[in-house]
C-alpha cells in the first residue's frame, strides 16, 4: 500500500505552517504596522509587549488613594493589637460611640471590616479624603496605630437585633443594568462581598446619603478607580435615598 502517506502528511502540514506563518508574521504585519519597521511589526505579530512611550507621554491619572488593597494588606489581628487599638479608640467614642455604634449620624464602626477602617484612616491622613474632624484625628496616627484601631473595631460585635425591614429596593437588589449600575449587594454583602467594600447594614441614613451624594458630585474621591463615583453619579436622588434608607433599616 501507499506507505508515503506519512511523509506527504508531514510535508503538507509544514507547507500550511509556512503559508500561515508568512501571512501572519510577514505580510499582514507589514501592511498593518508599515510605519514602524519590519522588526517592530514582527514583534507585534508575535505579541511581544511594546513600549507605548513612543506615542507620547501618558497623562498621569489623578490618584484617588495611595492604599493598595490586597488580601495580605493586614495581618490577622493579635489580642495585643486589639487591646492597643481599644486604648487608641477612646478618642473616637465621642462620635462613633463607646461600643462603635454611633448616636451622632457618624458611621457605626463595630464589626466593620478592618481593611475598610484602615484604608479610610490612611486616606484621611494623606488628604485623599477630607473631613473637618477626621483629617485632624488621623494626622497624628502612625501606620501601626491605624492597623490596631481597625483591628479593634473589627473585633466588636455588630449592632445586635438590627434587622433590615421591607424588601430591598431595586437598586440594591438589581442595580440598573442599562445605566451600568451594579447591585449594591454584589459588593456590600447579601449577594457577594468584595475586598475593601464596607459593611453597610445599620449605617445611619444621613451618613449614607451624604456620602453617596459626595461621590456623585466628586466632592469625595478616594474610591480606587472611581468605582463608587461611577455608580453614584448615575444614581437618581430617589435611588440614593432609597438605598440609604434601606441600609439604615428605615425603608
Amino acid at each position, binding site marked *: *500500500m*501507499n*506507505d508515503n*502517506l*506519512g511523509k506527504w*502528511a*508531514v510535508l503538507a*502540514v509544514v507547507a*500550511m*505552517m509556512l*503559508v*500561515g*506563518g508568512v*501571512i*501572519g*508574521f510577514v505580510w*499582514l*504585519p507589514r501592511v*498593518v504596522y508599515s510605519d514602524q519597521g519590519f522588526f517592530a511589526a*514582527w514583534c*507585534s*505579530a*508575535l*505579541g*511581544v*509587549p511594546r513600549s507605548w512611550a513612543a506615542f507620547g507621554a501618558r497623562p498621569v491619572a489623578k490618584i484617588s488613594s495611595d492604599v493598595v488593597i*490586597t*488580601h*495580605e494588606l493586614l495581618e490577622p489581628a493579635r489580642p495585643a493589637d486589639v487591646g492597643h487599638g481599644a486604648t487608641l479608640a477612646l478618642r473616637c467614642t465621642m462620635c462613633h460611640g463607646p461600643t462603635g455604634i454611633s448616636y451622632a449620624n457618624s458611621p457605626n464602626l463595630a464589626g466593620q471590616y478592618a481593611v475598610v477602617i484602615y484604608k479610610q484612616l490612611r486616606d484621611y491622613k494623606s488628604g485623599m479624603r477630607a473631613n473637618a474632624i477626621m483629617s485632624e484625628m488621623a494626622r497624628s496616627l502612625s501606620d501601626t496605630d491605624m492597623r490596631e484601631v481597625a483591628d479593634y473595631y473589627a473585633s466588636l460585635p455588630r449592632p445586635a437585633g438590627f434587622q433590615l425591614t421591607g424588601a*430591598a429596593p431595586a437598586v440594591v*437588589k*438589581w442595580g440598573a*443594568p*442599562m445605566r451600568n449600575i451594579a*447591585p449594591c449587594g*454584589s459588593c456590600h454583602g*447579601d*449577594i*457577594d*462581598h*468584595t*475586598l475593601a*467594600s464596607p459593611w453597610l447594614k445599620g449605617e445611619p441614613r444621613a451618613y449614607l446619603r451624604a456620602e453617596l451624594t459626595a461621590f456623585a458630585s466628586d466632592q469625595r474621591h478616594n474610591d480606587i478607580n472611581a468605582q463608587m463615583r461611577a455608580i453614584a453619579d448615575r444614581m437618581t436622588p430617589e435611588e440614593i435615598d432609597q438605598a440609604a434608607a434601606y441600609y439604615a433599616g428605615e425603608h
Partner: protein
Amino acid sequence: MYNVRRLVLAHFGFAFGAFALALLLGEWQMIVRSPLHGWLDNPEHYYRSVTAHGTVMGYVFPTLVAMGFGYAISVVTLNRNLVGLRTAWIAFWMVVVGTVLAAVIVASGHASVLYSFYPPLVGNALYYIGVALIVVGSWVWVALLTINLAAWRKDNPGKKVPFTMYANVAGSYLWGWTAVGVVLEILFQILPVALGFKTTVDAGLARVLFSWTLHAIVYFWLIPAYIAYYTILPRAIGSRLYSDTMGRLAFVLFLVFAMPIGIHHLYDDPMVGSGIKMMHGVFTAMVTVPTLLTIFTIAASAELAARQRGGRGLLGWVKALPWENPVMLGVAFSFVMLGFGGAGGLINMTYQTDSTIHNTQWITGHFHLIFPGAIVIMYFVIVYDLWPALAGRALGSLALVRTQLWLWFVGMMILTIPWHIAGLYGMPRRMAYYDYTAPALAPDAWTVDASVLGGALVVISGFLFVYILLSSLRRERIAPPAYRFSEALHESPVVPRALNGFAVWLALMFTLTLVNYGFPIWELRKIPTTSVPAVYVGGGQ
C-alpha cells in the same frame, strides 16, 4: 459484552443521571433570564447554576459517555476481555468522586466561577481538585485503551487494527493531550492561589492555557458521535461503510488539527499577537477537511443502502432510506444541526466576523447547537444501539424512541436558532438578567421566550430518553446477538502503514502545539507584570 457490561452500564448510568439533573438547571437558567420571569433577587444563584450545568455537561457527561463507549468498542472490536478491568473501575470512581466534590462545592456557593474558571476569579480549591480528578480518571481510560490495543497487537502482529478501535484510540489521544492545558492551568495558575500559596494570577496565561483545552474538548465530545456515524449507521441501515481508509484519515486529521487552534477563542484578547491568531485561524479552517470527508463518506454509505432498497435519481434515493430506523433518524438530525452549527462556526473562526458576535449569546447558541444538538443526539443513538447488548433487554416502542429524537431535534432548533439571533442583536452572554423594558432591547425579548419553549421540549425529550431505558428494564430478558460494528464496503486486509498506527499524527500534533502555543506561553510566563491579584468568590479566602 465480555467483562465490561457492568462497567459500561455504570458509566452510562452516572453520565445520564447527571445529565438529567443538569438539563433541568439549563432550562431553569433560560426561564429566569427570560421576560417570563422577574429579575432574580440573587444573581449569584444563576452563576452557581451555570457553573454546575457547565461542569456536568462539559466535563462529566461527555467524558463518561466517551469512556463507557470506548471500553465497549475495545472489547467488541478486539474480541477479547478488557485488560485492567479493576483499574477501569478505579478510574470510574475517581470521576464520580470528582463530580460529587465539585458539585457540592458549587452548590454551596464557593465556586461560582463558571466552567471556564475565569481567573482572576478564584473559587474554593476543592472545586478545582474535583475537576482535576475527573480529568485524571479519564487519563486512566486513555492509558487502558493504549494497553489493550498493544496487547491485541502483540497477539496479532502485522494485522490491521479494526477501524472502530483505531478511531476510538485516536479520540482518546486527542483528549489525553487536550486536557493537558486545563490541568496546567489548574495546577500552576489556579490551585496555588486557591490554596493560599500565592495571591496573584496571570489571567492572560491562564486563558491561553485554557484555550488549549477549550476548543479541542469539543472534538473530544464529537468523536463518539463520529464513531457512531461511521460504524453504527451503515450496519443499522443494512449498508456498509463506504471507505475505511477515508474514515481513518478523518480521525487522524482531527487528532492533528483539533488542538492547536484554541486561540481563536481569544481573538479579542490583547495578550496574544495577531500573527499567532492568524496561525490558529488557518488551522481552525483545516478542521473543515475531516468534517467534510465524514459527511461525504457517511452520505455515500447511506446512498449504498438506499440504492439497494430501490432508491433512484440524483437525490431521490434519500426517500428510500429506512427513516423508521431511529439510528437513521438520529444521524439525519445530527447532520442538520452539524450543518447549521458548522456554518456558524465558520463565522466564529474568522477574525473579522467573530468581532460582531464575540461574547454574545450567539456563542452560547452555537455550542448548544453543536454539542447538545448534533453530538448528544448521537449519544442517545449510541446508547439505544448498545442497550440490548448491555441491559439484555429490547427497547420497547420504537415509535417512542423516534418521538424522543424528534423532540430533541425540534427542541434544539427552537432553543438555539433564536439564541443565535439574540447574539446578532448584541445580547451579551452570561447575564443573570436583562432589561427587556428598555426600548432598544425590547425586540430581543421574543428570542429568549422562544428558547424557553425549545428548552422545555429538550427537557421532555431528555426525560423521555431516561424513561425509555428504565421502562425497558421491566421487559423480559433476551439473549441479543453478539454486538458488532459496521464493515467496510471493501474490507481490505491492509491499510497504509501510517493509518494503522499513530506515530506520525501524534508527532504532528505535538509539533503544531509547540508552534502555535509555544511562544505565547513562553512569553507570558516570562513577563512578570502580567499577574493580577486574585478575586475570591465570596470575598474571602
